[in-house]
Each structure stands twice: as C-alpha cells, then as structure tokens.
C-alpha cells in the first residue's frame, strides 16, 4: 500500500527530473519538473486518429499495457511492508505480467501494417527476451542469499554483512538501472530523442497511437521507471522505519532519475547490431552476483 502510493508519487516527477537534468547538463534552463505530466494530461484530453488497418487489438493494447504495469507495481513492497499482492514466487508473476503487456504492445504495432512499427516491434521483442535472464538470475541469487522467494521477504531479509555483500548490492543496482533503461528503451540501447524512425525502438512502435492512448502509454513509461526505482530503493531500505525510509525512497528515485539524465547526456547510443552483446553483459553480471552469493554463503567449492 505504502509502496503503491509512493511509486505513483514518484512517477509524477520522474520524467521531469530526467529532462531537467538533461537540459542543465547541456547548458539550458529546461522546463519545469511537472511539464511531462502536463503534456500527458493534454494528450488525455485529445481525440484520436485510428488507422483503418487496425482491429480491436490496437484499441485494447495500450490499456492492457498500462494494466500490466499497474499490476506489477501492486506487487512491489516497500521495505518491510508488503505490496498489495505478495506470495512466494511473486517475482515470477511480476515478470510474466509485464511480458503480457509487452506481448500485446508488440502485436498492436504489427496491427497497423506499417513497416516502421514492425521494425520497432521486432527489436522490442528481441531486446526484452535478452534482458529477461538477467532479472531472473538476479532474483534467483537473492532468493539463494536470503532463503526466501517473495519480493517482500527477500528485501526485508537483505542485510549487508561483509564487503562482498556491499559489492553485490552495488552490482545489483547497476543491473536494475540498466534493466530499467532497456525496458524503457532509453539511452545505451535506444535514443528517445532521435528524429529518425529507423533508429527507434519503442517510439516507433507507438507511431500510430494518438490522443488518450498515447497519453496512457507515455504515463506507463513513467510508471515503469518509478517501479524499477522502487526496486532499487528496496535493495537499501530493508527494515528501516517509515519516517526514515520514505525520504530515502524519494532520494533514491531522484538520484536514479538524475543518473538516467546524466547517462543520456554524456553517453551515446550503441549501434543497433551491437545491442544484443551489450544486453548480455547484464546476464553475465547477474551470474557474477550469483557466484558472489555462493561465496558469501560459503557454498562455493
């Protein structure tokens, strides 16, 4: 419950902080922090243009995408207080619920019959397939580390005893930041500010969405960022009391957003063909974490 409200709150300013950071880094003043949300509200009030080629799939996909992310957010705990839905193995359902939304978005892009959107859909499907093992192996390592298999019990049991476990926390943060970047099609994989459809991933998939649907999709991206931010925050909150953990949560979200902004300002997009290699780095880092956990637990032979 706490985490749900906090994530909704964070999703309101997250994109604004990113854009503000980027504009400051490039020497501009930049728009206000709530400008992206205002844009979304403007879109929600607008009418839409639907392609004649599309079917019902195209109508329901944005809503289903939003619903899937919302459902996933409901599973995220805040430190010791569990999310709305919490059971052993909930992170498996978390990943599969997100995949459900993604499936429908990919299919709805193909529904328009445009070659651009097919291209985006193809890339999105491939990249999200490649990023999945990293998440599962990471969560598997935590399950091994704490002896539990639900988000809430994993995060409340996660404590840092030795230096190696600090390193594991750092690596896990790195992996989650990059998972968030890839899942939202941000910088090292995709450049949201590119002007050319041929080099886009997520943006090109939603070329035909307009009005309310586009607003929903854009908000879902914010929500997804805030959701990953919450997972990263959970890595550090543990069993801290609420008066301390809530400011910490906000602080971590802002830091995460600033980091995203900085990465986008100073990094370059990798070549499309090199993305799979890049994404596999994440899986190898997760495997490193797995062995680290084995080392900490003394199970490593």
């Amino acid at each position, binding site marked *: 419950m706490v985490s749900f409200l906090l994530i909704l709150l964070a999703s309101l300013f997250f994109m604004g902080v990113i854009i503000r950071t980027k504009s400051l880094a490039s020497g501009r003043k930049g728009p206000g922090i709530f400008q992206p949300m205002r844009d979304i509200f403007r879109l929600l009030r607008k009418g839409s243009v639907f392609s004649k080629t599309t079917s019902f799939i195209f109508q329901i996909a944005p809503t289903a995408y939003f619903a899937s992310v919302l*459902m996933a957010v409901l599973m995220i705990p805040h430190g010791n207080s569990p999310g709305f839905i919490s059971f052993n193995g909930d992170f498996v359902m978390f990943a599969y*619920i997100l995949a459900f939304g993604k499936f429908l978005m990919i*299919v709805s892009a193909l529904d328009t019959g445009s070659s651009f959107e097919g291209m985006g859909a193809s890339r999105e499907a491939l990249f999200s397939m490649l990023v999945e093992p990293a998440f599962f192996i990471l969560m598997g390592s935590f399950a091994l580390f704490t002896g539990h298999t639900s988000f809430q019990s994993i995060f409340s049991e996660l404590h840092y005893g030795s230096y190696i476990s600090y390193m594991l926390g750092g690596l896990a943060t790195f992996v989650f930041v990059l998972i968030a970047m890839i899942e939202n099609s941000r910088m090292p994989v995709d450049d949201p500010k590119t002007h050319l459809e041929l080099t886009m991933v997520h943006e090109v998939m939603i070329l*035909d969405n307009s009005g309310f649907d586009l607003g929903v999709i854009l908000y879902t991206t914010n929500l997804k960022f805030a959701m990953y931010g919450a997972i990263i925050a959970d890595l550090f909150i543990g069993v801290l009391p609420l008066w301390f953990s809530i400011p910490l949560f906000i602080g971590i979200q802002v830091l995460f957003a600033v980091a995203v902004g900085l990465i986008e300002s100073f990094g370059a997009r990798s070549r499309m*063909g090199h993305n799979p290699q890049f994404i596999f780095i994440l899986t190898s880092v997760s495997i490193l974490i797995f062995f680290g956990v084995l080392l900490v637990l003394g199970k490593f*032979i």
Partner: protein
Amino acid sequence: MEIKLIELFNVLVLVGILAFPFFKIKGRGIITLSVITIQVLIASIIAISVFVNGSVEYAYTGSFITGLIPIRVDYLSAWFLLVIGFTFLTGAWYGIQYMKQYIDQPSNLTLHAVAFIVLFTSLIDLCMIQNSLVLLVIWEMMALSSFIVIIFENYKADTLKAGINFLIQSHVCILFLTFAFMWVKVKTGSFDLQAITIYTASQPALIGVGLFVFFFIGFGIKAGFVPFHTWLPKAHPAAPAHISGIMSGVIIKIGIYGILRMLMLIKTDMITIGYFVLFMSTLTGVYGVALAIVQHNLKKLLAYHSIENIGIIGIGIGIGCLGLGYHNQVLVVTGFGGALLHTLNHSLFKSLLFYCAGNVYQAKHTMNIEAMGGLLKEMPRTGYLFLVGSLAICGLPPFNGFISEFFIYNGLFDGLQANQFLVNLFLLFVIFGLVMIGGLALICFTKAFGIVFLGTPKVETRQPAFLEKHARFFPMFLIALSILVIGLFPILFSAPLLKIVALYQPVVGPVGRLQMETIFERLSVVGWASLGFIALMALLYYVRYLVVRQRQNLEDTTWSCGYTGETSKMHYTASSFIRSYRKLVEPILYIKKEKVEAVGLYPEKVKQYTHPGDKLERWLIDRPILFFRTVLSRFTFLQNGNIQTYMLYGFIFIGATILIPLIISKFSTLVSFLNQL
C-alpha cells in the same frame, strides 16, 4: 465395475468397426464420433472412479507366451486417461467438420476413421496394461494406426515421405523399448512391469541408470526429445489439422507417460537420472524454440513448439527426480506436479492452435506465413482463439501455461536453497534455459499471430470468403474455456496432482503433506491474482471506453513517414521481423539462403529465400545415411541384372556353406596334429 467398463471400452471398437460396412460415408462419420464420445465417457468414468476410490488392479491369465497380463489403473494412468480423452473428444468433433472437405474420397475417409478409433483405444490401453510383451504389441498398433491417420493425403509425395519417416522412427523407438524390456525379461523371467522394480532394486545403481537410459531413448523418440525429435516437424505439417492437434497434444505425451511410469518403477540412483533428464530437457526446450522462430510454415512452427514444451515438461520431471534423490519434498511436488500439469496444459493450447491453423489452411490453402496477413478481419473467431492459444503457450497469465511454468519456477528457486554447489550450478543453467525459452516463445508467437492475423493481406486471393461455421467452433471454445479455467482456478487440480505425486513417495509424513499443501495454496493465490488482473484490465478498458467515446475520433491510413499510398507491401514480413534474431543465431543454427542481388545498370528483380534447416538432423541422420550410401554404392556392381551372375552368387553361396565348415575342421585337425608334435 471398472473391469466391466474397461472390457466394454475395448469391445466398443469392434462393434463400431463392424458396423461400418452397413452405412454410407455420413453414417460412418456419425458412428466414429459416437464411438469416440462414448469411449471418452467410459475412460473418464474409470479415471474419476480411480481418483475417488483408489487404484484398480486385476489380471487376465493370458497365453503361455505372454504369461499373466496384469491391468493396473493407478492415479498416473487415470490422469493420462483424462488428458488423452479430452483431446480426442475435441479432436473428433473438430475433425468431423474439417474432413467434410474430403467427402469425395469415401474409402480413404473410412480407413482414416478406423485408424482413428484404433489409435484412441490403443493409447488408452497403453496407460493401463502392465505386461511388457502386450504393451509392445499395443505400442506397435498405436504406431501403425498413427501412421495411417497421418498419411491421409497420401496422394501427395511430401505427405507420404513424412509418413514413412515417422514409421521408421517409431520403429527405432520400438526397437529400444524391446531391448529394454528384453533385458528385464531375461534377468527376471517375468513380463510384468513390476519386475523392473524388483530387478533394479537388487542391482548396483549403474545398471538401473543404464536401463533408464534405454527406456528414455525409446520413449524420448516418441516424445520428441532433442536429438530424437526429427520426425515431429515433418509429420505435423503432413497430417490433417485435427491429427496434428492430437499428435502434438497427446500422442507424443504417451512418451512422457512412459518416462514417468519408468521413474516410478525403477529404483536406482535418482540424482544421476535427474541431472541427465534436466540437461536433455533444457537442451530440448531451447533448441526447439530457437528453431521454431525461423520457421515460415505455420504448422512446422507449431511442431517445433511441441518440442519446446516437451522440454519444459522434462525440466519438471528432472526437478522431481532430483527431489527424490536428495529427499526434498518440495522439489518432488513442484517437479512432478509441474510436469503433469504442463502435460495437460500443453495438450489444451497446442490442440487449439493446430485447429486454428487448420481453419487457416482451409481458408487460404497454404501454410506459408509470408503469404498471409489481415486474417483477423476475415475470420475473427479463429483469430481471437489463436491469440488465446498464443498467450497461453507463451506462459503468460491469466492463462493456464503460466500456472505450470510457475510451478516449475517454484521448484527451481526452492531447489536453490539446497546445500550442494553442483545443484546450484545446474539449476542456474536450467533457470537460464527456461527464461530464454519464455522470451523466445514470445518472439515466436508475436510473429505467428502478428504476421498471420494482423495488418493487411500480402497476397491477393480470389477465393470465396471462409465461412466460420458454428459447429466447428464448439470444440475450440470448449478448449479455450478450459484454458482460462485452469489459469484462474488451478486449485481444482491440487487433489489429483497430490495423489499422483504421492505415488512417487509412498512414505510421506504429516510434515511432508503439509509442505505439499502449502505449495498448492500458492497456486490458488496466483489464480486470484490473475482474476484480479482481468478485472483491473476490464475496469481500465471501460474507463477508456467512456473517455474516448466523448472525444472526436477519426479514421485514416496508417502513418508512414508522410507517404500515404496504401499498399500491403509496406507490411513487415515474418522474415524481417526475425531478422535481427536470425543474425544472432545464424552461427548455431543452419539456415540456407539464396539471394539474387541487384547488379549492373538494369538489375533483375531482387529476391531472397531462406530455408531453415535442422543442424542436428544433418549431423545425426542425414550425414550418416549419406556415408552409408556412399560406402554401399561401391557394391552396386554386384546387382547388375544379369540372371547368370545371380545364379553364380547362388553357387558361390552354396559352395561356401559346404566348404567353409569342411576347411575349418580340416584346419583344426591340422592344428591339433601340429600341437601333438
């Protein structure tokens, strides 16, 4: 009562087939349908009564060759009776509509119907009979009848070729089973399957594992484990749609039944078996789906997906074996429970997908994905049912595929708590494999659904529009409904699954029972969460509907960078959709490409063809056969068609048979004489 029912079940076949000559072709169809329906009813009654009253066991005296023929119907058999029965029921209902197109071939249809009934009966009997000799005979009946139903369109060369390929591979399978059963028979002198338990319990572990490997290869060929899978992608596209659905749904599952049965009987080092099965299954799963993506024949794609799902089932079985070996209750339940549930789930969604593919085939007369597009508008019910099947096969909630995959994931993550380094390392490998399978399946089915049913038609056809008749959809909706029910209320299956799993561990204390039940409670939570997800989605969609209704909405052509010419050539093709994936896996898989590039001032039409091949098939089957052929072709001069030469061979042969023993005896006399010197 069960004994009477089982006998009635088998007598019905004879009655049905004997009635055939007295009816016209329509009447024969009705007889087939009613015989199958009654048989399924009987099988379900037997299965349910077994689940309620406990297992049934009795024996026929048999002849002096077979010895006692024991019939044992336990929970495992009952589970498979239900799975096979349901798929055959929907298959028969769908098949009768599908076959109406071929009404001008009455004799062919009759043969098909007879083989269909025999196939069903032999599959059910295989689950009940526990005498290895009789089992082999029925196995052969099953193989032959499935060969006949596959080659329904026997006037097509490809179909016949695929059928013969199937026939040969089924017999290799029978060969391995015969070896294994002979092994036990020679050592124990009994055809009863329980002799396996007695034999393996008294022998060192290596013997038991070796025996299991023989059984695994035999049953694995039927189930389609890599590298014994090569018949699957050939036979499925050749068979009529309802047969493909049944074959993928239950015929290959009889292999899984065999493996599960043998694991129950063989008492040996379960840890080694567990690792072996896990490794083979992970390989099977990843290889199956990796090849499925590059296929452009819809039925072939689905066939490779069956291989993938057999991999997932195998992973469950492997986890269960590890649990037996390490005495870990949770692993046993999640492993075997997940495998059994996935067997049921896969039979549901795969048959649904094949029936949809059958509708597509009858509408378009092709299975080439590239030639289709925009079918959702033409045949909406088929399209949405295909979508349900695709979501379920990708293992996405709220459908049934997720439940069984969740089960298996639970086993994997709980297994990580074990204290062995090797287990952890192996489970890491399996988790990686299973996640890759999930992700690749997503690519595969977004491609299959998106390219076939969405967008615009890529090839103009002048065929009349396909009529979606109600009768054809009754079985399909039935399957879709069960897919959703299992996805939302998996708890319905907890009692039967617990009973089956308990067979593997006869001694379970109250603590173990409690642990098993908590695992099933997790599943009910998953079901409720899925239900909540559907409710949330419906609510949000209703809100969207209310809002969007008030706005001004326009219709226009798809936005394409300022270009407004409407042409289906703009639509992304299946090959381009998987291009980046293909580039990634090209070094591992074998994909033949033919290209005509634009050269010169007046270039010809640019073309590119890709033919996905199977690297393992090339290495393990095609190359050895080629080798044999080149070696044997050296000796073709012997067969020169000259009658005198053949007579000479005869004389040489007779002379040799007389002379060689003579020479040997003379030689041995000489040797003994020399020895005495």
